[in-house]
């Protein structure tokens, strides 16, 4: 890697992404929230996070009543890249950012500020403003096709012998991936091999986009705005170098973007609504709902149904996978053109890593009849991620 970004993998292993600061009042609230028991410290002692156990989800950070937990920042590096005329800086933003960024500027939660978000990023000096939603659509193409191959293998269709086992688990959530690697290595063959949208975007940016724009990939800096602290860990994983460079250089959170906008003196509320740049900036409704629990599943079902049946879906909503219950399940009848039969596809949606253990145990023991399981670490999905605006108005 020629382009080191100051956050070496060794440093990350020592400090982790999430740290408890001196402001800790030792109230023990965080230990009840942490899904992996990574936070140590007795009542009355300053708490400490074990980076080996921590899955970087940041739920402790957004729920700490004293604001005493913080995350590793790459804002300085992003500003340096923006100020360097020799660098070509591209940016992507996750779906969940656009319905929460407005909260930092006095708007109601859920207000869609997509257009203003693009405008503000241009004002900050990014050379191209693309969208993670493009990569979410790409994820559906790859992950959906992979699922179809696994199903064909399971029903004994010839030509799919090298496909993986069922059920297939989603692989978009970096906190869930680390949890699976740390606690259930036996389940890893069931994880979709498709990268997360953020990393797909990074790999495509420094190859396809660089080629089309005539920019040297070595001069390109790829930044992403995420509702998530675990994405900071993900972009620094040593294997995320498919483009020949670090695929995504820096990750900033929704909160950090809001801080940059305020610091630059941009009047966010009066910005015009702009569009993302073309080439890898177009998105669909399926990509938009990636930010909510059940959304990846619903997006995959919309595409899988149409590709497998060869029929157009009249009603695109799959309301059965929506909701906020930690574990939800549904069965969707999909007519399969190639096999001439109708297959009841059984799906499961898990939100909250605390609850995924028993689903995995069932799969490992052969008791599970699911085909596809979506897992998101944060309750409610990415919209409630560790990088989102903190709502302490409740305390």
């Amino acid at each position, binding site marked *: 890697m020629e382009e080191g970004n100051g956050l070496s993998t060794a440093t990350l292993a020592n400090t982790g992404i999430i740290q408890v600061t001196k402001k800790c009042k030792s109230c023990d609230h965080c230990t009840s929230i942490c899904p992996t028991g990574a936070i140590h410290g007795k009542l009355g002692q300053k708490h400490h996070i074990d980076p080996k156990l921590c899955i970087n989800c940041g739920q402790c950070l957004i729920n700490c009543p004293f604001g005493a937990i913080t995350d590793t920042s790459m804002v300085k590096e992003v500003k340096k890249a923006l100020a360097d005329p020799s660098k070509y800086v591209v940016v992507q933003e996750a779906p969940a950012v656009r319905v929460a960024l407005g909260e930092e500027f006095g708007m109601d939660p859920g207000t869609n500020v997509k257009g203003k978000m693009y405008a503000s990023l241009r004002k900050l000096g990014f050379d191209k403003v693309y969208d993670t939603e493009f990569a979410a*659509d*790409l994820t559906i193409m790859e992950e959906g*096709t992979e699922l179809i191959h696994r199903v064909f293998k399971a029903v004994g269709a010839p030509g799919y012998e090298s496909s993986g086992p069922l059920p297939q688990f989603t692989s978009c959530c970096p906190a869930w991936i680390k949890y699976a690697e740390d606690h259930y290595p036996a389940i890893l063959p069931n994880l979709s091999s*498709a990268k997360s949208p953020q990393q797909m975007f990074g790999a*495509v940016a420094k190859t396809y986009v660089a080629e089309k724009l005539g920019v040297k990939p070595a001069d390109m800096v790829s930044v992403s705005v995420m509702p998530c602290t675990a994405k900071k860990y993900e972009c620094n994983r040593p294997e995320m*170098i498919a483009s020949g460079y670090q695929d995504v250089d820096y990750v900033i959170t929704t909160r950090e973007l809001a801080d940059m906008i305020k610091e630059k003196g941009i009047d966010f509320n009066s910005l015009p609504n702009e569009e993302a740049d073309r080439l890898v900036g177009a998105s669909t409704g399926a990509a*938009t709902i990636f930010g909510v629990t059940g959304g990846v599943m619903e997006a995959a079902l919309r595409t899988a149904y149409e590709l497998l049946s060869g029929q157009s879906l009249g009603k695109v909503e799959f309301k059965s996978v929506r909701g906020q219950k930690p574990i939800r399940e549904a069965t969707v009848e999909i007519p399969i053109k190639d096999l001439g039969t109708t297959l009841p596809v059984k799906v499961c949606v898990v939100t909250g890593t605390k609850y995924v253990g028993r689903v995995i145990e069932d799969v490992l023991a052969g008791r599970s009849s699911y085909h596809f399981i979506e897992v998101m670490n944060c309750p409610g999905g990415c919209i409630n991620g560790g990088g989102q605006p903190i709502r302490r108005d*409740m*305390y």
Partner: protein
Amino acid sequence: MSIFREKGTFTRRQFFKGSGMLAATIVISGVFAKFGYDAWAASDAYIEKRISGLYTLDEKMAIRKSHQNPEILQIYKDFLSPGEVKPVSEKAHHLLHTKYGQDIPELIKELHAHQHDAA
């Protein structure tokens, strides 16, 4: 403590005092319960609002299925699987797929070898 002494019924004064204290306790605990419930409800309300924000946005989008995104079709035809739309092509596999856990060191070796081939 006169109330512990065995002695007929409550006096009129004791009855007023007791019922007054009981009423005050009910009102005060009710207020605190309401306060607590509101705090709990408010802590969840923003999650629900952000969720419906995304579903509303989905409904407003002109295209609502990933495989109909024109730029997705373009990247397959121009780059990932030249001339056709074929997910999990060799190039897509190299750029868009990964490995987990103990398979990672081998994947890193493969990626470095790929760079040498390309160079």
